[in-house]
């Protein structure tokens, strides 16, 4: 069966009278990195939030692995294999990096009504969490409090948490937001290491990063996807250049 991993059909979202998502169709294939680009206010984060369940769409349908998940709660989608990172860093600040990632591991294995045994002695869980930290290169800072590490490291932590959930699809909302060039390069390196292994829906502003990572691209303008194609073809698409790249490179 050649079914896409994620398939979005005719998605619409209104806030009051404002249309944030407009007849949106999108699909992500297994093992692919699919990027969504678009100008500010195009509705990228609104889209991610609807995919991960924080926002309810006004109408439309979202299928994941052939199952209709439109009515699922955020938590249920996460358990089904959709992991999200946030554009604005959203980690548990007073906890250590390891504790943060352990929470992600714990969330995915679904056994949290355990009241007695200490997680600090749960070596299986610690190992799994450490593995994710290694993947993003944070293993040497595992015991630091999240509030005390750098912004770039917290962005990496976001990715590690998403990874630790053992997801089938990673929803990454501008993972490079607010990063310096060195940090960005580091993140690109981490993400390319994941390529081929996991399906990723990447929302990103940094065009260089997008072009080096993505297999395919969708361009979102005013809540509507105006083009979807391979990276090379999009680069040469005149509509896209006018609508989006033109502005940026003008």
């Amino acid at each position, binding site marked *: 069966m050649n079914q896409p991993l994620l398939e979005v059909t005719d998605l619409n979202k209104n806030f009051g009278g404002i249309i944030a998502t407009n007849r949106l169709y999108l699909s992500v294939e297994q093992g692919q990195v699919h990027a969504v680009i678009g100008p500010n206010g195009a509705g990228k984060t609104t889209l991610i939030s609807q995919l*991960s*369940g*924080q926002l309810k769409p006004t109408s439309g349908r979202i299928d994941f692995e052939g199952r209709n998940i439109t009515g699922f*709660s*955020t*938590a*249920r989608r*996460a*358990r089904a294999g959709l*992991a*999200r990172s*946030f554009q604005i860093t*959203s*980690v*548990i*600040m*007073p*906890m*250590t990096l390891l*504790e943060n990632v*352990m*929470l*992600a591991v*714990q*969330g*995915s294995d*679904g*056994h*949290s*009504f*355990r*009241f*007695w*045994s*200490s*997680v*600090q002695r*749960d070596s299986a869980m610690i190992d799994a969490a450490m593995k994710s930290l290694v993947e993003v290169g944070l293993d040497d800072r595992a015991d630091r409090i999240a509030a005390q590490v750098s912004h770039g490291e917290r962005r990496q932590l976001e990715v590690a*948490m998403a990874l630790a*959930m053992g997801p089938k699809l990673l929803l990454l909302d501008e993972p490079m937001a607010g990063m310096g060039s060195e940090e960005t390069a580091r993140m690109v390196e981490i993400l390319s290491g994941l390529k081929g292994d996991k399906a990723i829906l990447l929302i990103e502003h940094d065009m260089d990063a997008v072009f080096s990572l993505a297999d395919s691209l969708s361009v979102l303008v005013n809540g509507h996807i105006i083009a979807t194609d391979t990276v090379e073809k999009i680069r040469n698409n005149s509509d896209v250049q006018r609508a989006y790249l033109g502005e940026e490179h003008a």
Partner: protein
Amino acid sequence: MRILPKTVSAGVYTGFLALLAIAPWIFSVIDEPFYLDLLSRGLILAIAALSLNLILGYGGMVSLGHAAYLGIGAYCVGIPAYYDFYNGWLHLGLTVLVSGLFALVTGAICLRTKGVYFIMITLAFSQMVYFTFVSLEEYGGDDGLVIYLRSEFPTWLSMESPVALYYWIFTVLLITLFFIHRLVHARFGRVIVGSRFNEDRMQSLGYSTYRYRLTCYVISGVICGIAGMLLGNFTSFISPEMMGWTRSGELIFMVVIGGAGTLFGPLVGTAAFVFLEEFLSYITIYWHLIFGLMLIALVLFGKGGIHGWLSAFDRKEKRG
């Protein structure tokens, strides 16, 4: 997050618990049996404060209606006793059942809200319980209910004598401390603490946080109910006045004075509260003035409560 403090504060707390363990002996040697009463009352309130700390300190759920559970627990002793049922297991079972059920039903509604709305809705429910008991004339209404005999347990568990009752209370306190210590370090506790700081994130990690918070709320209610059951036995009396909203406020102070979200904070805070109440009211009938100023100063200048100050010693020691 480190929950059990090491070094200075840990030493202080261990010493504190050890003192509590031998307190009845000390008081009998110096022939001051009244201090045992004061301490018993303090420890009961400490159990209640510990239970509140579980939702308030660890879970970030600020309840202004926690005293309702003290009342419910006490009436679970008083009402059966009114019909001459003195079996302690019955009292205990009833307490767990009723306070758990009440927490489940009200918590299911309260936890749909957040922040100040949560504060107000917990207040609303506790006021409803308060007025219900005021109107239950059969059980004394506003005048309250005298409990003639303590809950009856097998001899080795008897709470008849003041010392036996004290050790009952002390044991429940130790169990509560240990249970909460395990709980917050276990998977369940991690979810609760995580949800306090970032509930959205926890949901996107796959947690149906509502269920965990509700469970935590029920556990807290049951522990506080048990404290109420002990309170009923200790005072031999229960009246609706014990669950007014100002009592819930006092419980919050006990938690915050000591240090919210720390294991021993509520215990120390309660000790400070009961001591101040007794000591200041001895000095002057205007003691509320001093107490009020201390509360204000605590918030404005003394971050982290007593536990916070002790931890400051720990940090100094580490640096030194």
